[in-house]
Every structure is written in C-alpha cells, then in structure tokens.
C-alpha cells in the first residue's frame, strides 16, 4: 500500500521491511537449496556438494507417485464438489430472501473459522458412528467442508456485485432459467468460480490436520512428507517433493489473485 506518492519511507522502516520479508522467505529458499545437497542423512549448512540425483531418485520412488496421485485426485474431486455446492449456496443466499438465510451463511463459513482439529475430530467420530470405513471418499468429504467455503465466499461476493435485475432482464427477453444461467449468470461469475476453485484446490492439496483424522492408512503428499521426516534416509527427496508442492499450490493462488483483484478479496486464502 502506498499512501503518499513521492514521500519516501525512512531508512529504518525499509530495513525492517526487508528483514521481515527475508525472515518469511529465506526458509523457503533453504528448502530449495537442500533439494540439491549431496548429504542425505541430515541437513547441514553449507551443503557439502550439489547434485541433481535426487530428482531421478524421487522420480523412481513409487510411494511419492502414490501420494501425489492421491492428493491430486482428492483435490480435484473436492474442488468439483465445492464448485457445485458453493455456487448453489451463494446463489440462494444472495438472490433470495428466506427464513434462516443469515444463519445458513454463517454455518457455511464455520468450517473455515473452526480450527481444523475440531473439524477433523468431528468428522472422525461421525464416520465412526456411522460405521463408514476410511477411504478416498472420507478424505474428499473432509476437504470438501472447507473447499465449499472458499468457493462460496468468492461466488457470493461476485453475486453481490452483479445486478439482480440482469437475471430478470434475461427472463424478460425470453430466456428460460437454464438459458439465463448459461448466457448471463455463468459468464458473470466465471472468474470468481475459477479463482475460488483454484484456491480450493491449493487448500486441499496441502491440508494436513483434517486429513490425518479422515485418511486412515492412506498418505496424501503432506502426510507422506511428515512421515518421511522421521526416516533418516534419502532426506532431499522430501525437498524435491516440497518444491513441486510449492509450485503446484502457489501458481493457482497467484492466478486466482490476478483474476479477482478488481475489488474481490480472495476470501479464506489465509487458512
């Protein structure tokens, strides 16, 4: 934010800002550096040597592929569910008046406001109560709870900016409900849905807490990483995967930011 153009910040403030940024981002840089180290049992600074062999090792580890595949599939399905439910819910809350509307809006946002550990325990005991064995779908269900919020928040903000009479105008001009959705509603909320969807995908991809309660013996990428840290073997493989995760989650969030920065905040990006 700049408040006054032309007025320069004092030197002390600049140094403090630089230190803050370094503190936040140097550790991430370290992860990248350790992906190339020749030392495999522990992380020593400076790295004794540099190598790219860990990329090949990672490529040939089936457990990495399994974890990546599970994470991508979970994120994709959770996002798809969130897109449908979040949009429908946002449409209902912003376009109609009904009893309990405010309450529903609060209840939808609750999963992201609650600590993940609460959501996790709640889901785990619910699954146990209903005798549902842990599976791919229990992870998806867990992730969908907070993915819906992200899509809902983005969609509801866009719906609020969209003139309600536009839908009436479309009906007035002869379009039925489906045509109105396809030709008027969807084009107007598309970027919000894309942004919400990408955020949901990124959130699901690196989710740990809810996943530990709902995954059983399956490993998503973050869980695989946690397990890997305990084992003192081929440590840099974790770093290679971490690099991939950073790229996979950062790019969508950046893209989402650029798509919605004209007024829409990316709700829930802090989770």
């Amino acid at each position, binding site marked *: 934010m700049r408040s006054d153009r032309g007025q320069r910040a004092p030197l002390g403030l600049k140094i403090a800002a630089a230190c803050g940024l370094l503190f936040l981002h140097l550790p991430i840089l370290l992860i990248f550096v350790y992906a190339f180290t020749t030392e495999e049992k522990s992380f020593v600074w400076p790295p004794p040597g540099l190598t790219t062999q860990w990329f090949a090792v990672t490529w040939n580890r089936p457990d990495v592929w399994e974890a990546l595949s599970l994470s991508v599939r979970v994120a994709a399905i959770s996002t798809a569910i969130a897109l449908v439910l979040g949009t429908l819910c946002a449409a209902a809350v912003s376009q109609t008046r009904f009893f309990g509307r405010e309450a529903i809006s609060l209840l939808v946002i609750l999963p992201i406001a609650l600590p993940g550990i609460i959501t996790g325990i709640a889901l785990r005991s619910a699954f146990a109560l209903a005798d549902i064995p842990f599976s791919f779908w229990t992870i998806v269900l867990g992730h969908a709870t907070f993915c819906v919020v992200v899509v809902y928040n983005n969609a509801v903000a866009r719906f609020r900016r969209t003139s309600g009479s536009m839908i*009436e105008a479309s009906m007035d001009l002869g379009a039925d409900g489906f045509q109105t959705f396809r030709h008027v509603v969807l084009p107007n909320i598309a970027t919000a849905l894309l942004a919400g969807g990408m955020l949901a995908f990124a959130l699901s991809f690196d989710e740990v807490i809810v996943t530990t309660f709902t995954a059983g013996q399956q490993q998503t990428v973050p869980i695989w990483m946690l397990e890997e840290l305990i084992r003192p073997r081929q440590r840099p493989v974790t770093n290679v995967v971490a690099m991939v995760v950073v790229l996979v989650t950062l790019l969508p969030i950046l893209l989402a930011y650029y798509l919605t920065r004209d007024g829409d905040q990316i709700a829930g990006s802090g989770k």
Partner: protein
Amino acid sequence: MCANSPSFDPATELTGPMTSAVSFKQVSRHFGSVRAVDAVDLDIVPGEFFAMLGPSGSGKTTCLRLIAGFEQPTAGSISIFGERAEGVPPYRRNVNTVFQDYALFPHLNVLDNVAYGLMVKGVGKAERLKAAEEALSLVRLPGYGTRRPSQLSGGQRQRVALARALVNQPKVLLLDEPLGALDLKLRENMQEELKSLQKVLGITFVFVTHDQGEALSMADRVAVFNDGRIMQVGSPEDIYQRPKTRFVADFVGSSNVLPPDFVQRYSGQHRWGSLRPESIRVSSAASGDGVAARLVGTNYLGATTRLALDANGLMLHAVVPAGTSLPAEGEAVLLTFNRESLHLMDEPA
C-alpha cells in the same frame, strides 16, 4: 417447463377491436400483510402511451412487474391482449421491459446485448445481428455495436436498453422509471424521443414514474396510484384539471386543497375543492371582492414565482409569471380566481 400452460402464440391469438392491451380484474398482490397492489381494475388500450404515476410504495412498480410476469397476483386476473397471463413466466410473454438501472449485460458488447432476445429464441446469427443493428439505428446509436456497456454514458445505456427491448417487437413495452437516472436536459430530450418513437412504432407503452410532469407531458392516459390502489385514471387534462380526490389534486401539480367550509362560500356546495396555483391572481388591493390574505413567502423559480399565502390560517400557494410586480412579504393582498377554475372533488379522502 409446463407444456400446457398458456403461452402467447401469434397464430391462435384473436385481437378484436375491443381487446385491451392489458386488463386487470380485481388484481391484488400482497406481500404478507403489505398490500402492494389491492383490488386494482385497469384497462390499457392497444397503442396508447399509458403512465402509472404515484409516490414510491404506491404499487405502480408492482403493477408493472405483474404485467412483466416477475410477480404473480395473489388474487384477480390479468390478461394481455386477451390471453390469460397468470402462471405464464416472463420468458413466454410477448412483453418487454426497460429496467430502471437498464440491466445491460456487462459481459456482452452492445450489439450482442441488443441481439440477446433473438439469440435465446434461436434466430440465426447474421439475421439477429442485422436486426440488432437496425434497432440501434432506431434509437439513434448506429455503429455503437462493438462497444461495451461500461463505455457508454447513462443516456446511451438507456437507448441500448430500449433497443434491446424493441428488437423483440413486443406487444407491450414496459418502462420502469427509465428517465430517473438522467440529468434534466437529457431527460427532456428522451421524453420527446420516447413519445415520437411510440407514435412511429404503434406499440403500447406502459410507463412508470413518480414525476407528475413527465406523466402529464408524455402519456395519453395517466393512472394515479396511492397505497396500492388506483385513485384516478384519465387523460392528463382530466387528472390535472379535474382531480377526483385530494390526493390526486395534491400529488399532481400540488394543487391547493380547499376545505368544504371555504368552498361553500364560493360555490354554494359543502364539498372539498381544489384550486390550481396558477389560477390564483394576486393583487395588492387592500379591499375588494376576493379572499383577503397575507403574503408570507416568495420562491423564485425562473420562469415563474411561487408565492406562499396565508388566508386566515388556510395556507395557499399561487404561481405568477416572473416579472409580475409583487407586494413585499408580510403585506396584505387580495386573491381572486374564476369560479370555473375552482374544481369540486367527488371524494373527500
């Protein structure tokens, strides 16, 4: 979609000379305990320019939405060119609306906006774009097709909204306070243009406004609304010269409403009366045949001056042409008027 619900098929339609363009029979629309429209009877003649005038919350916009199909009546029946309209969704009525906020589609350019109605009806691309271009010429915006709505001024958006409705060749065009957002000069231009457009096209226009000047200058007939009911329907002259109720007298041209005791002295009848401000002549004669009053305020309006007068506790307004020599404020004046200009009202309320 329900296949056997009534729809507007031009082939089966019978429009005899006596068919109303829009007909309301005891139509009510209640929202909970709020009677937005209450037992309204209304007949709009084909081809006329019909204005619905009233203060906000008087039910005029709800009536418009009942014709458009955005609202369904809680009681009564509506027919449009002889066809029952209850239960017919907006997209199957041959009626189009110009919205107050124009409601243009921001993701489409002007030409695609205008062609939208034809597009959803399945008209081929070349044909619908040609029709849209013609509609844009009709509202004097030829060549604006490639622009975005956000690149247009308020007046231009309004014309696009008009073209978008007219391209569908509706039988009734509904206009919801279409000039409300325009500045004075533009509004006056659009008033004339709308009126001549209506004459050329011969389409029934139903126009909602809270501006009595707009209603009087544009409409063939005016319906004055208050509290969900129609107070009076008539030609602009009828409404202005012969208001039936105090509300109409007061709302249309802010007439002086006179109590029965006052009226009895001049007409011999114990009834409520109304007297237009411009019918009152003000002279500084101290005595004579007229109403003695005191000038308590003057309001310069440009072409005219508006005077506030106190006739023994009865507050009256008079409008005199600018340049009339006036007594000073606080001085005694004599008010005179022709007996014919004192209008007696049928209903007291």
